[in-house]
């Protein structure tokens, strides 16, 4: 097997006396989607922040291409090719597609102190990058990002990351706020990123979405990896049960039903 692009080895993270992550070991390879599943509060967000350089692990190590690395800042992680796309795309609603795409790395034309932002070039590149990902409805780089649908905004953010040479794409709940159709859109783009040889870390609590694109799954419960398995090794019910903290979904349902029944009678 190839060397993983990004790997965590025995990573712990605590904030003061509170332990948030225990002994996390995960790896993700090029052209592979690692789905990180977990309920709210399982430590997903902290894990993302460690991967993207916002937090540093208390102990344990991060490896890229087999060599130990550290990310003192989000910028350092970005420079090594790690791109994080947040739930709402991390984009600026009142900026045009072209300006948003090139934020911080604006293309310029002209000379010396009179270098000016090259709007035409920025718009053309941004629109092409997004269209290459299959979002053909976007054809005017002057449109404001806030006017795009949630799925289109995610796609723009992913296309942007890929354009600027990301090797690892971290998607933080990209489908959480989306309808079925929009979510399908985003999942298609995740597959496209995978096809292009990126390593994708896909964070979600929607098992269906994870199963649609994932090659490798890790379930996070109370800050620890509770299960680590590959595609086809577990059924949807088993994964859901795992996420619910080991309690079987069926027994949970039975409990709710009996609770409803007893309280329903009392109300009548």
């Amino acid at each position, binding site marked *: 097997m190839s060397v993983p692009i990004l790997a965590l080895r025995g990573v712990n993270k605590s904030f003061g006396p509170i332990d948030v992550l225990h002994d996390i070991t995960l790896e993700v390879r090029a052209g592979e989607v690692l789905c990180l599943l977990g309920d709210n509060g399982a430590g997903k967000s902290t894990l993302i922040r460690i991967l993207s350089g916002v937090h540093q692990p208390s102990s344990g190590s991060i490896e890229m291409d087999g060599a130990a690395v550290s990310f003192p800042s*989000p*910028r350092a992680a970005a420079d090594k090719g790690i791109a994080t796309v947040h739930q709402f795309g991390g*984009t*600026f609603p*009142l900026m045009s597609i072209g*300006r948003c795409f090139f934020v*911080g790395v604006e293309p310029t034309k002209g000379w010396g102190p009179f270098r*000016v*932002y090259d709007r035409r070039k920025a718009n053309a590149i941004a629109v092409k990058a997004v269209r290459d990902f299959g979002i053909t*409805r976007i054809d005017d780089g002057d449109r404001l990002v806030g006017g795009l649908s949630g799925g289109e905004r995610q796609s723009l953010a992913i296309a942007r990351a890929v354009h600027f040479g990301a090797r690892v794409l971290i998607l933080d709940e990209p489908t959480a706020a989306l309808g079925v159709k929009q979510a399908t859109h985003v999942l298609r783009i995740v597959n496209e990123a995978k096809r292009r040889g990126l390593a994708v870390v896909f964070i979600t609590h929607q098992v269906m979405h994870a199963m649609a694109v994932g090659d490798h799954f890790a379930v996070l419960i109370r800050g620890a990896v509770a299960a680590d398995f590959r595609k086809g090794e577990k059924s949807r019910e088993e994964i859901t049960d795992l996420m619910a903290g080991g309690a079987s979904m069926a027994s949970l349902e039975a409990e709710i039903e009996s609770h409803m029944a007893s309280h329903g009678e009392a109300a009548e």
Partner: protein
Amino acid sequence: MTTPFPGNLLRRPEAGALIGLIGVTVFFAIVGGIEFLYPSSVGSWLSRSATLGIVAIPVGLLMIAGELDISVGATITAGALITALVSGYYEQPIILGMLAALAFGAIVGLVNGYLVLKTGVPSFIVTLGTLFAVSGILLGATVVLTGTTSIAIKAPEMVKTMFGMYFGAGFQVLILWWIAITAAFYFFMHLSPFGNWIFAMGGDKESARNAGIPTARMTILLFVLSSVCASFVGMSQAILFQSVQATPQLTLIFNTIIAVVVGGVLLTGGFGSVIGIFFGTITFAVVTQGIYYTSFDQTWSNLVIGVLLLGAVLMNNTFRKMALSYAPKKEAKA
């Protein structure tokens, strides 16, 4: 692709400001009489615009970046007072007084910027603090040093020509400075790549920082720009009026905010334009000066300004929604 002219214009941040400006100008030309458009009248409202506009543009840029600076009310007095103190009371060369005024402006800006960054307190509160602190220092120091709260200054002819002269029919030379500064800020904001950083900072500061924008340095730069511009206006007022009072110009604070908001800048940041602020400033000056040409008592002018502000905000909201929902027509069918 090209979009039809009116639609394209209406989606820009300055659309509301331009319509407002045309509206109030026509209104006062009709109600106040055609004298309102005579050169001498134009000179009076443009001169008023210039004083306000030089401060309003950098304050507007701060607002686009998601910050606010109300300490300009004290900084403008500081600029005037320091010029008068150094070159009037202590009779030093005028250039020393001018440089001292601008340097003091830069220091106030640095203090504002650092406090906002280090404390994380909203810039409204921080600059409210520095507004009072600076005006306290000014009043106290002036009384201690000179024994009065008013200082006279006599500027040499050449300096007066540059900052405190009238040309034509009542046009203050400051109008030319205002236009030049507007042009410089237009380049900075809309043509150079820095403008993009400022819009991004106002849109989402954390994403902007993650995208590699030096948000801390930009924030400090913007605070310094607004303070230096304010002390520049104060300095030229000292040269023009030849006498300075050590009282902060509190109404200027509201006036800059009105000009900026009427100019289409979003209070919460991320949206606006230099041209919009330029139009907003003239609109404000037209209203405050126009009232003198009408038969109304001038005490009503604040009512007009209040209504104008609310109307402008509502109109700008509408235009912003139009800009957001805009999509090329031909794609709707596809």
